[in-house]
């Protein structure tokens, strides 16, 4: 009984502190935050890439998602064995000749497919600079940079 009382007191204090923080600082930030200083060597933050930068965007999500809400002008390269990997290679190779800066994105920050696709693009040996987008499609969507999206306030 004594323990329950102590728990109730702690919970009441925590609730009051959280409410105060909300009142003073506003609601929690639910958008993805990317800190360039903490990126892995092959990653980039979206804020480092101006909207008009000459970038070949490679979408590593399933085809249906790419068609629905990929980046305008992006190409598809996922790891679905039902897809034609050689067609992906050929399409990317042709585009790299004109746009040697490549950024791969997948669903969100926890998706690992973009890194595998980036490896495969590097392995083509076409001399492209290939990066993985931190936060993936989610960060693009929040910035209003995919089909059918608008920037979050």
């Amino acid at each position: 009984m004594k323990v329950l009382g102590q728990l109730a007191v702690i919970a009441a204090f925590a609730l009051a502190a959280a409410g105060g923080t909300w009142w003073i600082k506003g609601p929690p930030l639910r958008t993805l935050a990317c800190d360039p200083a903490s990126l892995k060597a092959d990653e980039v933050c979206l804020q480092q890439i101006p909207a008009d930068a000459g970038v070949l965007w490679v979408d590593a999500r399933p085809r249906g998602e790419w068609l629905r809400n990929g980046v305008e002008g992006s190409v598809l390269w996922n790891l679905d064995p039902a897809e034609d990997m050689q067609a992906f290679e050929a399409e990317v190779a042709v585009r790299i000749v004109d746009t040697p800066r490549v950024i791969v994105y997948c669903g969100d920050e926890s998706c690992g497919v973009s890194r595998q696709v980036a490896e495969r693009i590097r392995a083509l040996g076409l001399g492209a600079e290939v990066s993985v987008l931190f936060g993936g499609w989610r960060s693009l969507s929040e910035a209003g940079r995919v089909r059918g999206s608008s920037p979050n306030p």
Partner: protein
Amino acid sequence: MLVAAMSAVVQAAGLDFPQTLKEIHAPVDAKVVTAGFEFTNRTDKPVQVVKYDAACSCMALKIKDSKLRYAPGESGMLRADFEMGNFSGTVDKVVALWLDDDPADKPSVKLTVRVHIPVLVSLEPKTLKWELNGDGGPQTIRITMNHDSPIRVVSVNSSSAAFQHELKTIEDGKLYELIVKPVEIGSPGLGILRIETDCTLARHRLQQAFAVVRKPTPGEAAAKP
């Protein structure tokens, strides 16, 4: 007592997977490979598997006996069947499990199936590069067959007339050389070389290499002496 009560709350969710990475060396002719992930609920509360997903139509997932709720101490098995399609080389496939009240974008568990698929026809290098207005001399791709039975090159086709090519047989069914030369070196260009073999396994039959004439990238230019 209070600390014990709080820590019990922290440990309330979770399944223990002794192995979260399974490596499989697939046989040459395998179409599907299977990985099994065993798990146990080592908490003192029941755990509910809410959802599991591989984000790929190539991966079929099944939990043994379709059981989704696990009492403390209970064990189970998740089976992942990976359909290999036309892959070769190494492929990682990630399986995510959402437990109890996991948020939609933060599954508690991530499992990896790493499949090593034999490369029967290897091209080295896969891409030939010429510098714009540089030396336009011929370069060679070595085509090596890594199989018990011979694999022969049946044809080579280029997507572009800007590159000439010639196939040389070094050892029939084992080793070939593809010699490629740009017709002119004064303008950028890309050629896709499609190499067809008589390999009986469909995913190894057709190979692809690249020939490119381009300006060096800033990194390549900086690396020059």
